[in-house]
């Protein structure tokens, strides 16, 4: 563990970009409006699709009348679910390693029954989107409304209708875990604390809605899908599988993507339908979700209720954790990653930062007639962190100990690694104590406590909240591959040196704004030995990058970056072999620095890469016999020792409560996190800040509210509140560095740490502010209404 960014010898290259805040090379065009988002693309003969969607949460389709729509201006086709099902086969979103997980076959468009408000039942294709929407209004669907299952806590009761009778009940998945001596640990505890934690359902709200432009070209027998997806090869496989094509017949292209955050890593029925329509109509078909469609059909997330319990001794030692979690996932487990992963993560992660070995957990994943939920940034982490850190604060209160001190007495020691959590998660090297110390110093924790006490005398109620967390990054095949999903867990990078010595880098990890391409350029430039501007990075095209997984679960820098590092070293060796031949030198005495072949010892310049390339490509006749230049190198990487490279961190929140109105103001937020080697400090910090603000949105604003009939009440951005600039605080970010030894770079993921702990810190801060009133809240989003109720004023 180092306090400063790493200076590992393997990374200690001349002119290294590792650890430098270099700007992203691909940004200028986005500031000029020259991006190419899917919504911007236009193809010859392109038509637009609008979907007719169910207005009911659960209803049988008696009849669909399409005559009037077919006759409307500009309409090319009107297609119903059964018609589409002849082109696109259904799927079932299960994975074999999530034992017992079940779901029902799901079609691209409902065939006989809609199971949530917003499920597509018919498609109208027309020359313009406006004409398609006009005609969609003329489609007459005769519905027979069915009872809707909306309350997840009663979904398993005998009186509740079963959504998919073939499945027997509404239970999609259940997992239990028992570690250590739980009952004894509660019995012997000096105090037992418990709470019912509620995590509201929210969604990703990418600013660019989901979009696909599907282009089936019967002339070449190929489907090109311009998509905004985080996992191009996964989509290639799935489009081929369900449209009856060979994978080689499908090309997925992702240019600029207007935000993803996990929302755009799933298979969406309306996107599959659009591809099927292109195949049926033999021309390009474009679908862009409007905002209402985004709210009702983008995956939702969270929606957990957790009963949590912890035992604590007077000396501050936590003796046991216990949780009973339930989550409602909508009517189908989402394909192919499933909707049980979040609950599974909750079980894996509760208590994760702490030494406590006694842990009991149960989670139940139930079906309901609401929008399907699935993986969204920091999957499961905000729930596990909210429960764990809420219980830790309750334990501190129960024994009258400062919450920072209680954490110090329970966090896994920084010299205890490698070790396992009570749930069996393997931890390689974390830094909870160093991180907490750093955070408390940054916050001036003692000073804040003194100020808080002084302000309370004047009727100003401030609260300070802490939240430690662990975060899953760099997933191996353990996440999806072992469950049978065809989602690559390894990623690849191909480098090619062209005739001027410039490098083209083709990578299977993808870019959605995180800075993936910048980090790859940094790593390649450093490993190979050229200025960054000599590296051009290409991603997001299944025809032109190595096969791989893409960018999700905080894996692009750690996994894709290592592949880039190894590929850079391989290309360097290839070029030096040719250079050695030209120079009649021993390749082992040469290196590449700043685009020149140099003497490794002295740095003396010997020959430029451009000259080596010129000889290799244009005058190979001057090379000695048997020297065949190979200036293309490919390397892949996947973690093998650890299923996940866990990271850790701790967040601090300072809030001010107005007990009269229930309004909570965020004054300041702090984060210390440890993602191993920091490849680009600015990009890491901005990932953390953006992630924190998504967590703050969940903490204070964002909520997919439904009525008892399963009608979404927050289907517009006017109703669904989001974090805007005026309410957000400045966020201080610092790092402790514990590199993973599994790679030479030592980088772990950083994309989800912010979201993992932000809401927990704010909820703890609110409860700290409400302590003088003996009030408590364990529900997010925190609203003025819920705060006033907690204060007994509601």
């Amino acid at each position: 563990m180092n306090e400063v960014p790493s200076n590992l010898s393997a990374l200690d290259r001349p002119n290294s970009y590792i650890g430098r805040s270099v700007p992203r090379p691909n940004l200028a065009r986005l500031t000029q409006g020259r991006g190419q988002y899917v919504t911007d693309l236009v193809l010859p003969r392109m038509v637009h699709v609008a979907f007719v969607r169910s207005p009911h949460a659960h209803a049988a389709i008696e009849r669909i009348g399409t005559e009037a729509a077919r006759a409307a201006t500009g309409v090319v086709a009107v297609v119903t679910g059964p018609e589409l099902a002849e082109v696109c086969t259904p799927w079932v979103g299960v994975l074999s390693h999530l034992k017992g997980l079940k779901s029902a076959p799901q079609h691209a468009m409902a065939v006989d029954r809609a199971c949530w408000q917003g499920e597509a039942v018919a498609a109208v294709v027309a020359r313009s989107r406006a004409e398609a929407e006009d005609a969609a209004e003329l489609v007459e669907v005769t519905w027979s409304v069915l009872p809707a299952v909306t309350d997840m806590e009663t979904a398993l009761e005998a009186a509740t209708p079963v959504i998919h009778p073939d499945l027997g009940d509404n239970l999609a998945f259940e997992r239990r875990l028992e570690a250590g001596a739980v009952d004894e640990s509660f019995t012997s505890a000096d105090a037992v604390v418990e709470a019912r934690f509620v995590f509201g359902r929210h969604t990703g709200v990418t600013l660019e809605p989901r979009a696909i432009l599907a282009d089936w070209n019967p002339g070449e027998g190929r489907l090109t899908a311009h998509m905004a997806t985080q996992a191009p090869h996964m989509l290639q496989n799935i489009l081929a599988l369900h449209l009856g094509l060979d994978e080689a017949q499908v090309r997925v292209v992702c240019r600029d993507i207007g935000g993803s955050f996990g929302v755009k890593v799933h298979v969406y029925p309306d996107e599959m339908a659009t591809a099927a329509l292109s195949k049926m109509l033999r021309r390009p078909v474009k679908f862009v979700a409007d905002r209402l469609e985004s709210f009702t059909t983008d995956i939702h997330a969270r929606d957990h209720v957790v009963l949590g319990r912890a035992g604590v001794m007077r000396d501050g030692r936590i003796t046991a954790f216990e949780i009973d979690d339930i989550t409602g996932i909508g009517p189908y487990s989402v394909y192919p990653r499933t909707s049980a992963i979040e609950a599974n993560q909750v079980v894996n992660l509760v208590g994760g930062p702490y030494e406590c070995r006694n842990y009991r957990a149960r989670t139940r994943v139930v079906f309901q007639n609401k929008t399907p939920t699935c993986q969204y940034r920091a999957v499961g982490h905000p729930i596990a962190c909210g429960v764990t850190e809420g219980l830790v604060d309750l334990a501190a209160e129960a024994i009258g100990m400062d919450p920072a001190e209680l954490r110090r007495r329970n966090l896994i020691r920084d010299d205890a690694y490698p070790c396992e959590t009570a749930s069996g998660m393997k931890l390689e090297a974390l830094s909870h104590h160093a991180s907490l110390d750093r955070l408390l110093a940054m916050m001036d924790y003692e000073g804040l406590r003194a100020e808080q006490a002084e302000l309370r005398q004047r009727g100003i109620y401030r609260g300070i909240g802490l939240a430690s967390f662990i975060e899953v990054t760099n997933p191996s095949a353990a996440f999806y591959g072992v469950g049978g999903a065809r989602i690559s867990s390894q990623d690849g990078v191909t480098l090619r040196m062209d005739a001027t010595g410039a490098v083209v880098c083709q990578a299977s990890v993808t870019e959605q704004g995180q800075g993936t391409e910048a980090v790859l350029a940094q790593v390649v430039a450093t490993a190979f030995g050229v200025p960054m501007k000599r590296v051009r990075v290409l991603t997001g095209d299944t025809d032109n990058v190595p096969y791989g997984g893409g960018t999700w679960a905080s894996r692009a820098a750690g996994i894709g970056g290592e592949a880039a590092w190894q590929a850079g070293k391989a290309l360097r060796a290839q070029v030096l072999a040719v250079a050695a031949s030209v120079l009649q030198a021993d390749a082992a005495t040469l290196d590449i620095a700043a685009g020149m072949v140099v003497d490794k010892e002295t740095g003396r310049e010997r020959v430029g890469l451009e000259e080596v390339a010129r000889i290799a490509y244009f005058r190979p006749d001057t090379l000695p016999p048997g020297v065949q230049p190979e200036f293309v190198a490919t390397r892949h990487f996947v973690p093998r020792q650890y299923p996940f490279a866990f990271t850790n961190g701790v967040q601090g929140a300072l809030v001010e409560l107005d007990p009269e109105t229930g309004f909570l103001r965020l004054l300041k937020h702090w984060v210390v996190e440890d993602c191993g080697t920091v490849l680009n400090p600015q990009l890491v910090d901005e990932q953390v800040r953006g992630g924190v603000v998504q967590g703050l949105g969940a903490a204070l604003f964002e909520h997919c509210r439904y009525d008892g009939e399963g009608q979404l009440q927050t289907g517009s951005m006017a109703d669904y509140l989001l974090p805007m600039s005026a309410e957000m605080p400045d966020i201080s970010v610092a790092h402790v560095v514990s590199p993973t030894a599994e790679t030479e770079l030592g980088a772990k993921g950083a994309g989800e740490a912010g979201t993992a702990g932000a809401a927990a810190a704010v909820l703890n801060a609110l409860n700290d502010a409400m302590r003088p009133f003996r009030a408590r809240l364990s529900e997010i989003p925190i609203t003025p209404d819920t705060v006033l109720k907690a204060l007994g004023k509601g």
Partner: protein
Amino acid sequence: MTSARVIALTVNGEEVEAAVAPRTHLADFLRDVLSLTGTHLGCEHGVCGACTVRLDGAIVRGCLVLAVQAEGRRVETIEGVSDSGEIADLQEAFVTRNALQCGYCTPAMLLTAQDLLLAGGVPDRDAIRDHLSGNYCRCTGYEAIVDAIEQVARARAGRVA
């Protein structure tokens, strides 16, 4: 649906004449008819701010103005202010500070920032945050955007002084 009407207006300094349906909003007109795809759509009901453009010098929501309302008026988009160099310093500051991630909100964010800076003076961070409060950014958490605008405000004030 009412039939198309021919409108004439100035877009980024060019005289434009085109037939539009009366219901077409300005952002759709710019994107679909003029291929000015730097103006983005996020919500189409005036909340997210992604479609911000300038109409006779004032920033407006492109989704809340009908194209026919722009008849005879002057429209400026991100393409125009980029090519003229008017906001080159802001664009550079956004890149250097990584004040954009996916970039989808960025054209509108830049036009909104320029609107604030054209008012003169050096706004404090609260004033910057307040002025941006109608522009949704899901990626950055806003702090980098505020930093970039603050830096440009100071730099411009320095040049004036």
